[in-house]
């Protein structure tokens, strides 16, 4: 309950320090076990056969030759994965995505799979599978897919959210609308209106670890799965349902994860590995190649966005309007509505209207990438805001301060904001030395603001006190950013013991209740809150034991910095008992001492960020160098500041890649042309400068320490900040991403021609 969680104004002992992380030694010595590092006796290698066509009917699959190949122990197709989805539309889409049914819906769509004694045999077996395709026309561009004559992917999709209801199926799944006030009236009041259209191409989260898992299903129907994932409970429940297994029969263990960023919040190869193992009756390891990761996991949406903003001469916005067209690959569920909802969230607006369209195309099913849907929308909106400020002759930062959302603002997506940190980041930015640093030749400065909701979710934590007074902590949210260190800090803080007396593990699905996926920037917030409550529950029990030992009432005992003490002079004159003292007597005083907490966390605080970037554009080559970058973001309370900085820097780096180089390039045949790290160019060390960070702390009332999620917001401003910076440096505004050298050169040439 929010009232119980009013942030402590206390001075923290360990929270806020920078101890070494518990998984550190393993990670610097190569001992840490990631998804592809597990082995099992008798293990088979699993490989997936994927459609070479962007859109095709699958008439027939002949696996007979593959099955006869020596060393092949199982071959599966759609026939081995019957429909257990029981009318759940979302599950049904996943079921079709992991193994095609009547149609291949994108190049890379899984069509069959084999398990063999080694990789070479598995590859040979795939070549022996004969698939009879009837190639169909395809569409990969979001605007093309919305046109009346476009090839339609699903005959059961009739656009929702439009009146009158359409009679023909289309690729437009749903229309959303948000906002308040009267934008028509607002635009009439404006002295200046700017209207622009933007396009962004799909990108990939680019985690260095490809999807990998090791599945082992026995003849009794019990299964084990080792997998790199952001949510092993989600994997368990989804896979069990798809395979028609009881959920409790499947035990999933989360390996260390080599990056996720949202791309590992769903399943791709896991149900296939389990189905292969079940058929072969042997463990099966399936690891995606990098090419498969690009073609058949979950990239972001590509988008087409219209923005219209009207302002008065004094800089006050009178109306803001946006239309957001997002394609989410071959299935419904692009984050178009989040783009619409977050787009104007940084502004205090009287009149705002945002419309979003979720569109399907013949591309892999999209997955989240940090704040899903928000970066593209921010790119469009913040570009227009900067242009308006420039046209008014107002400093862009002052324009944003003048119109900034603050406590009491009715947000552009509906609810009224409580205490928020946007103005604080803007005011800090204005004071920051970066802001007034001199610029060189061909250099330009840009800034942008970003917003993300963050949320809570189902979370369970168990805390056990061992007989020597050290503590084990079992959490259920995979550690993707250093969260185990933060959990240990919070447990140590509550118990009043040193940080290194607490060891945290990510427990398997049989050891804890359900935990939602590690997403939504939720772990430090929710698992942290659960850890604090579990620690407090344990403290209650520790005090009760002390009371028993002293023969005084329970409420006469208090806990202070690791010791049970009599609450006052009337309670008795007993020397304090340390946690270790009480733990040593646990067996004789009632048994093991533990605290646990299971709940659905809510009250996550929204977070805002401001980014400032200087870039230099070479007018002859269009090459852009990032010269200086500063992130200012509200973290509520930084439990482990080094890891908060790491999130800020990582999100900024991903944004830089997205803004300048990264894009999915499709050929006319609907096939991905650049499915590798050479041609899908993510930033390397020499591309980037140091990334400076400023952590602001405006406490979130919904968490005992004031924690706000930080992981996602950092990717929202960079696209826009860099667009603004590059536009300033090059002297021409770019409206499509990425702003790669050819595009910058083309824009410069068009401007030179006087367009």
């Amino acid at each position, binding site marked *: 309950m929010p009232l119980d969680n009013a942030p402590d104004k206390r001075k923290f002992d360990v929270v806020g320090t920078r101890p070494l992380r518990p998984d550190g030694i393993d990670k610097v*010595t190569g001992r840490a076990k990631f998804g*592809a590092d597990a082995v099992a006796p008798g293990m088979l290698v699993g490989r997936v056969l994927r459609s070479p066509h962007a859109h095709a009917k699958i008439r027939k699959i002949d696996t007979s030759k593959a099955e006869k190949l020596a060393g092949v122990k199982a071959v599966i197709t759609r026939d081995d994965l019957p429909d257990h989805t029981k009318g759940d539309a979302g599950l049904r889409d996943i079921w079709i995505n992991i193994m095609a049914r009547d149609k291949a819906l994108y190049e890379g769509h899984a069509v069959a799979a084999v398990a063999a004694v080694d990789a070479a045999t598995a590859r040979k077996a795939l070549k022996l599978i004969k698939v009879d395709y009837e190639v169909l026309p395809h569409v990969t561009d979001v605007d093309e897919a919305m046109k009346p004559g476009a090839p339609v992917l699903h005959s059961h999709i009739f656009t929702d959210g439009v009146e009158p209801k359409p009679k023909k199926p289309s690729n437009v799944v749903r229309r959303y609308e948000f906002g308040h006030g009267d934008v028509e009236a607002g635009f009439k009041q404006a002295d200046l209106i700017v209207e622009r259209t933007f396009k962004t191409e799909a990108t990939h989260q680019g*985690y*260095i670890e490809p999807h990998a898992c090791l599945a082992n299903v026995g003849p009794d129907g019990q299964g084990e799965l080792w997998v790199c994932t952001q949510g092993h409970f989600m994997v368990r429940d989804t896979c069990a349902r798809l395979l028609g297994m009881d959920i409790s029969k499947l035990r999933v263990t989360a390996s260390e994860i080599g990056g996720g960023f949202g791309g590992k919040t769903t399943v791709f190869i896991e149900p296939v590995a389990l189905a292969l193992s079940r058929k072969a009756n042997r463990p099966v390891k399936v690891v995606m190649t990098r090419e498969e990761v690009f073609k058949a996991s979950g990239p972001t949406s590509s988008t087409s966005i219209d923005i219209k903003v009207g302002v008065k001469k004094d800089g006050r916005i009178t109306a803001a309007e946006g239309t957001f067209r997002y394609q989410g690959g071959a299935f419904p569920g692009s984050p178009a509505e989040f783009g619409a909802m977050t787009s104007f969230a940084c502004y205090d607006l009287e009149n705002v209207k945002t419309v979003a369209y979720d569109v399907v195309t013949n591309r892999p099913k999209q997955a989240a990438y940090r704040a899903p849907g928000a970066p593209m929308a921010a790119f469009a909106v913040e570009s227009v805001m900067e242009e308006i400020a420039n046209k008014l002759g107002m400093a862009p930062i002052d324009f944003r301060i003048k119109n900034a959302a603050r406590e009491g603002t009715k947000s552009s997506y509906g609810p009224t904001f409580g205490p928020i940190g946007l103005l604080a980041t803007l005011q800090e930015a204005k004071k920051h030395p970066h802001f007034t640093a001199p610029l060189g030749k061909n250099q330009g400065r840009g800034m942008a603001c970003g917003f993300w909701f963050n949320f809570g979710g189902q979370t369970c934590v168990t805390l056990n006190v061992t007989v020597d007074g050290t503590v084990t902590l079992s959490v259920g949210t995979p550690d993707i*950013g250093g969260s185990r260190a933060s959990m240990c800090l919070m447990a140590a803080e509550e118990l009043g013991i040193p940080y290194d007396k607490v060891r945290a593990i990510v427990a398997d699905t049989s050891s804890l209740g359900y935990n939602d996926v590690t997403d939504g920037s939720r772990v430090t917030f929710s698992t942290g809150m659960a850890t604090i409550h579990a620690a407090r529950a344990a403290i209650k029990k520790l005090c009760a034991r002390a009371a028993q030992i002293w023969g005084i009432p329970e409420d006469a005992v208090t806990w202070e910095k690791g010791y049970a003490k009599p609450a006052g002079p009337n309670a008795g004159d007993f020397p304090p008992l340390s946690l270790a003292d009480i733990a040593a007597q646990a067996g004789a005083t009632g048994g093991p001492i533990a605290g646990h907490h299971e709940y659905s966390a809510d009250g996550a605080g929204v977070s805002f960020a401001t980014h400032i970037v200087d870039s230099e554009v070479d007018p002859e080559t269009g090459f852009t160098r990032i010269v200086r970058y500063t992130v200012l973001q509200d973290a509520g309370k930084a439990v482990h500041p080094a890891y908060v900085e790491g999130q800020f820097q990582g999100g900024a*780096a991903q944004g830089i890649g997205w803004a300048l180089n990264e894009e999915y390039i499709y050929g006319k045949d609907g096939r991905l042309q650049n499915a*590798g790290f050479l041609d899908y160019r993510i930033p390397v*060390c020499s591309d980037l400068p140091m990334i400076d960070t400023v952590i602001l702390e405006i406490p979130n009332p919904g968490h005992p320490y004031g924690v706000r999620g930080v992981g996602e917001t950092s990717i929202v401003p960079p696209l826009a900040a860099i667009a603004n910076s590059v536009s300033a440096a090059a002297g021409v505004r770019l409206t499509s991403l990425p702003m790669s050298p050819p595009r910058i050169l083309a824009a410069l040439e068009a401007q030179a021609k006087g367009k």
Partner: protein
Amino acid sequence: MSSVKVKTKINGDVVEYVCDAEETLLDVLRNRLGLTGAKEGCSTGDCGACSITLDGRLTCSCLVLGAEADGHEIGTIEGMAKGEELHPLQQKFLDHAALQCGICTPGFLIAAKALLDKNPNPTETEVRFGLAGNLCRCTGYDKIVRAVLDTAQDMRKTKRRA
């Protein structure tokens, strides 16, 4: 499929194995020798997660055949620490929080060591270009570069004292 007998040295130890002609050194290290510190991120030599040293030279093990290791010396992440004593780079990576998910860390440590072995006093730019063959998606490289520069400074001081 033809098999090849290989005799090589890995982290100072003599190692013999049999592998298929087409197996990469990365496959051999991970699947035959249990040395899973080197990771497969791309199998095309673009990400550096499989970095090892081949006769002291920084190399992507996914671009070397297992057979090619015959008669040569291989250095992997598993050989970087001396027993319980971490190499200064490993300690500095921890101190600077220069890793988040940690999948690229073995490759970076091998690359950073190769860099400092050749150039004990690199500038920030030299560090950035020296590590440009290793991809990291989590950190933005900031803390990695700081860790390497800090290690270089410490190691120069220790050398001067010694």
